[in-house]
């Protein structure tokens, strides 16, 4: 009779699994877009010469 996997084996499997769900992908994309917009603004601030009087 096959045995159910032990609790330890299950825990290990949970740790190792690729826990990527569609919702997570969408959240990663939103976070990435925000980060990229911030990076573009920072880039523009740095490369734009300061205003002179």
């Amino acid at each position: 009779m096959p045995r159910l996997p032990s609790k330890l084996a299950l825990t290990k499997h949970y740790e190792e699994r690729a826990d990527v769900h569609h919702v997570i992908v969408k959240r990663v994309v939103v976070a990435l877009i925000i980060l990229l917009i911030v990076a573009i603004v920072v880039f523009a601030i740095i490369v734009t010469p300061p205003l002179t009087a």
Partner: protein
Amino acid sequence: MRLMVRGILWLGLYLFLVLLPLATAILSTPDRIPQPMIVEIGVGAGFVGYALMALEFALISRIKSAAAAFGEDALQLFHNLMGMAALGFLLAHPILLIIFGYPANCWLNPFASCANLATRTAALALYALILLVLTSVGRKRLGIRYEVWYVMHGLFALFVVVVSLVHIFILGRYTTTPGMQAVWLVYAILVTALILWYRILTPILNWNKKWEVVENRAELGDARTLVLKPVDHEGFSFEPGQFAWLKMGKTPFGMGQHPISMSSSGDVPAGGQVTFTIKNLGDWSGQEVPALQPGDQMWLEGPHGVFSIDRQQAMGYVFIGGGIGITPLYSMCQTMAEREDVRPVVLFYASNDWEGLTLREELEELTGRMNLKIVHVLQNPPEGWEGETGYVTGDILSRHMPKQFRRFMFLICGPEPLMDAMELALPELGVPPDQVHTERFDMV
């Protein structure tokens, strides 16, 4: 290496490559004419949009290490969403420059008298990208055949990347320093290498891995089951629920390939057969699949995917399937039966009618070999039907699930409305969201 660490490393590399043009432009000090901030934001949006676009090739090139960390369908979704993000950034690029005062007619109309090579390449790349995204999002509504779209998609993408690079070099504002030249060279090499890998090297590596049709039989629900055997190689074993890309033709270089779930047990012995059950959707599946004869040659690339009981261990399972979404669930049931797995499985199987339940008889047979309970939910039940009717709802689920269902893992595969409804209904029943896993078939 743990999959999560590998995933973080891949995401880090992706972010590094997207930000590389911006960072290099900051660090190198070219002798360029100072521009107002709005123009520099526009330039930055162009750099990011270009980098995202070039990296789109990497997301679908099926690099095994990345696919193992995220799952092929998650990467495909990421590819789709980042493609739209790239379009957003590349639209912002000319809009910001035009707001500042660049002449719109010259930059957006490649036939205008004031247009030159720099403006024409910019406009053509942008219009090609808009077409690329529109034909991808609305492929079915526009009635474009998958095989035609597949070729068109690759050509448009390559056109956008090459023409945009030409645009960057003609303008020359950010190509004067060795650092920036190196960045664009890296991108050119990356895109070329990925195309070579995906379109040339992968088929060459598959050259000696032919498969042959052993049987092509009709199933309920206007579907067909293809039984394939490896020719002079060991074939592959897979995690039940995974899919492979199927390609027809005499060589593995053919353009049209289709992601199809395996419908046989995942524990395939070396040289063993693999089966696919394919529903007639009117295109390739309805025209070419029924015509396949025993002895015909096919090519498989896989296995791919993370939708599997082998990755989602639990004390029991609730499978919810609709239409041809039953195939990966059937593969899981079959594998569990072969493994003599005693864990309980409740399968909710939705269909329009009784005759539309693909693999119905095969599933019934499995109830005698494993701890499987099947609940059919029919929208148009036959006369005298005493089972569940309509759509799968929370009420129907609660009527048939065991008391300890909150400790079970839920795997759902079927039409989008079914999966959307279940992703809402299950948390309401108290099922933790991380125990709900879906496989969306509509990858391409």
